[in-house]
């Protein structure tokens, strides 16, 4: 269910192309990027939900991906560097929309809390996450449900 949701949200909310990629090495992805090192900063966002079930959904994405998605959403021309607040805004909306779409697709009643965003440490691996490529850049997603 998560892969389909990510593909749909990337397409509809961010006008981007996404695919699940298992077995990819994050360090290889970083080495293969032609982006400036500063653009390889990672951003994180986490959304908690309550309702029929409670838990959270977390995303990690690179700042250059957030910039690309944000520029498209703003309707501005490519190459414009968004300020950090707007890059975090992209990460937060990604988590917010993904979480809502996933829970709606699962048929659960829910209510989301506002997303919390941060500049994240570079993940050493994708362990514990599901790895996607969005416009050929990594997006890591994981969700957790609180046990009763």
């Amino acid at each position: 269910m998560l892969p389909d949701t990510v593909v749909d949200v990337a397409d509809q909310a961010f006008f981007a192309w996404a695919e699940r990629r298992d077995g990819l090495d994050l360090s290889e992805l970083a080495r293969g990027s032609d982006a400036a090192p500063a653009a390889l900063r990672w951003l994180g966002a986490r959304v908690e939900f309550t309702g029929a079930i409670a838990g959270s959904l977390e995303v990690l994405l690179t700042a250059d991906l957030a910039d690309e998605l944000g520029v498209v959403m703003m309707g501005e021309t490519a190459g414009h560097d968004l300020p950090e607040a707007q890059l975090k805004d992209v990460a937060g909306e990604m988590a917010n929309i993904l979480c809502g779409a996933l829970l709606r697709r699962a048929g659960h009643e829910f209510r989301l809390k506002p997303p919390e965003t941060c500049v994240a440490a570079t993940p050493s691996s994708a362990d514990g996450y599901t790895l996607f490529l969005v416009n050929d850049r990594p997006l890591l997603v994981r969700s957790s449900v609180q046990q009763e």
Partner: protein
Amino acid sequence: MRDGSDKRLNLLIVDDSVLMRALVRRAASLSNVPLGTIYEAGNGEEALRLLETASIDAVFTDLNMPVMTGFELLEVIGRDERWRNLLRVVISAGTSAAPGTGSFGVTRFVEKPFRPEAIRDALASLL
């Protein structure tokens, strides 16, 4: 707008995300609905300040916002006679409780993610 006049619709977009406000603004601008001024607010409190001072026909609001949520905003609007005819559209990913918004006089509910056509359709439904 509902009286068939050629008045342009003044919109208020309420969302804590600057990017989402920009996206809704663009989608609204691409619709063929005659629009006047498009105002923006980052939360319910800012929205109320604008409603107090500007002539606004329709509000498009997120629900999940800091400071004052969309639910709280809709509750205040619903209690005030001045805004009895204000058209209300919810755009949100934040809840499965779309039916619950009915008690707030919500005309339309648009789920995130949405395609631009959803905003156009919501605007058209207000005419």
